[in-house]
């Protein structure tokens, strides 16, 4: 086992793609310890690719691409402006609210940061917000993209944990909403403290009608996708396909920003992004198999039992590990690495897989805004022209919201499990 862990770490530090680091360290393990089983490796890798649930992955990716390419962002920002633009620090509040709604559409924090950031970071700078604060706020609020359902990382977790996608979507809804509300409170506090401007919003009946008519199609999207899965009408894949059709229609005929000639490029990007994650899932099959052969999950459970950890203390310990891993490893591989190690042990302590999913995704979202691998940090740094460290400094006050929610959902399981149990039984 030491050989597996050491070789995995060395290969990852060398910059070998994570999928192949898992594969190569697994191969090394079998060559040294279990040469008789080596011929089973292709079947294990193949089994990781053979999944009907994961077809929803490229469909969720293309759904976000289509909506975004269709011209959603500016409409969404106008729509949010009606509600919170007049408050002090209105543009900051709009960024957070737009990210919350965008999270219900794209399922990806990085596309959230890129889309909202392109518009809001320059707008906030022009209104006198410090550039690092503007970029940091967008980076931090974009973390909601993967917490608020539909969430692409949640689909990956659902696959690894063999849990209901609908229950997991509902399980993270309260957490995502709390992050948004806390971020708005922090924005409002900082706006009053630093005297950021209010926006002069045109609230004439004509303007309200225009913004509402353009914003409502975007709001319907999460209702279709999450609503159909949660109600049990459709599977995750079917709801993602329905959402994609809806995004296609809205982008082409309502927002009119999407052209037929754009589709091949968008579909290509989506399927290659999906393959990028799927190949990690495939090689993770070897890794999970070794964990089972070496009884690692039992060992982790035994360790928790020997230390007499309660479920809350165990989750808090795992929180720290999740945050530490999130500093260096991207979200999808981190889910694939951590879930098989910790979920079985936590289940033995009575932690619900829905709660752990919510905790895992919320914890890993922080890693998107922390150096050195924070993807949202990189995106906002590129847009704003500020260094990654500057953007991180700007984001730090808002990350308090993420950490507070992580703590709350770790301590109070009902925040994750109540909604799924009420709506899905």
């Amino acid at each position, binding site marked *: 086992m030491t050989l597996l862990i050491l070789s995995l770490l060395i290969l990852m530090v060398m910059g070998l793609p994570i999928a192949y680091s898992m*594969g190569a360290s697994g191969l090394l393990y079998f060559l040294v310890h279990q040469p008789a089983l080596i011929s089973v490796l292709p079947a294990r890798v193949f089994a990781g690719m053979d*999944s009907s649930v994961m077809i929803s992955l490229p469909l969720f990716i293309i759904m976000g691409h289509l909506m975004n390419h269709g011209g959603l962002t500016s409409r969404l920002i106008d729509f949010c402006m009606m509600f919170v633009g007049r408050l002090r620090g209105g543009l900051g509040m709009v960024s957070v609210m737009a990210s919350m709604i965008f999270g219900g559409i794209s399922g990806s924090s990085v596309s959230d940061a890129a889309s909202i950031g392109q518009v809001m970071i320059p707008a906030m700078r022009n209104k006198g917000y410090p550039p690092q604060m503007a970029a940091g706020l967008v980076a931090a609020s974009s973390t909601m993209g993967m917490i608020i359902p539909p969430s692409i990382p949640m689909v990956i977790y659902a696959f690894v944990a063999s849990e209901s996608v609908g229950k997991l979507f509902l399980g993270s809804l309260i957490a995502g909403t709390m992050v948004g509300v806390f971020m708005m409170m922090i924005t409002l506090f900082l706006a009053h403290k630093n005297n950021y401007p209010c926006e002069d919003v045109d609230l004439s009946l004509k303007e309200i009608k225009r913004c509402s008519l353009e914003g409502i199609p975007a709001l319907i999207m999460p209702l279709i996708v999450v609503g159909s899965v949660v109600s049990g009408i459709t599977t995750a894949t079917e709801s993602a*396909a329905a959402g994609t059709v809806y995004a296609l229609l809205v982008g082409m005929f309502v927002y009119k920003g999407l052209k037929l000639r754009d589709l091949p490029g968008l579909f290509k990007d989506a399927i*290659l992004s999906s393959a990028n994650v*799927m190949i990690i899932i495939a090689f993770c099959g070897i890794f999970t198999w070794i964990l089972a052969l070496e009884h690692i999950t039992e060992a982790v459970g035994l360790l928790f039992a020997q230390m007499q950890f309660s479920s809350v203390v165990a989750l808090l310990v795992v929180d720290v590990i999740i945050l530490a891993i999130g500093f260096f490893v991207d979200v999808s591989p981190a889910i694939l690495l951590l879930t098989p190690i910790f979920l079985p042990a936590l289940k033995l302590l009575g932690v619900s897989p829905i709660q752990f999913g919510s905790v895992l995704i919320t914890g890993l979202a922080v890693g998107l805004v922390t150096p050195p691998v924070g993807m949202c940090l990189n995106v906002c740094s590129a847009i704003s022209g500020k260094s990654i460290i500057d953007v991180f400094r700007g984001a730090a006050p808002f990350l308090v919201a993420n950490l507070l929610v992580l703590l709350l959902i770790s301590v109070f399981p009902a925040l994750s499990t109540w909604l799924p149990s009420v709506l899905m039984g």
Partner: protein
Amino acid sequence: MTQSAHSSGTAKNLVWRLETLVTRLLEGLLTATFMAIFVLVVVLVVLRYVFNTTIVGGNEVTVMLFIFTTALGAAVDVARGKHIIVDTFVNLLSAGARRWLDVVNLAIIGTLNAFLLNYSIDWISAVGGSENPVVHIPEGAVQVAMPIGCALTILFCATRIVSLLADKSAAAEQGQP
């Protein structure tokens, strides 16, 4: 320009052309396959909820196509250098050291895929003949995505290594690290 630099430039050019050609073909194939998956899923949804019927084997076919998109897409991502990596530490290296490390990494990926290619052929020979009970095609017709993906990954590792080494020769000619 010296003769060695010229020949390494020509080799790189040839390899680059081959890589671009195969990559574009695969990207086109992947895009078409994904569009087919999308259309098939939508048709199945409409048939199920509107007409209360289905296409027998439709779900199985979408999964089969999806397996091919993963196997081929992962190979294309090697060519494009788009795989997810932890680059925190390698970013600290000089350009020359980074290039050598890239060559080593590609060699590891190629070796791993060579192992998988070899064992997957044995595996398909052993179990690939069994028929899928729904669509009535041999399982091997789908399992073959594994060796095809591995073979393409090996090809792209080789083309990337040649390109990196040719870059190194050109850089050495110009006195760069």
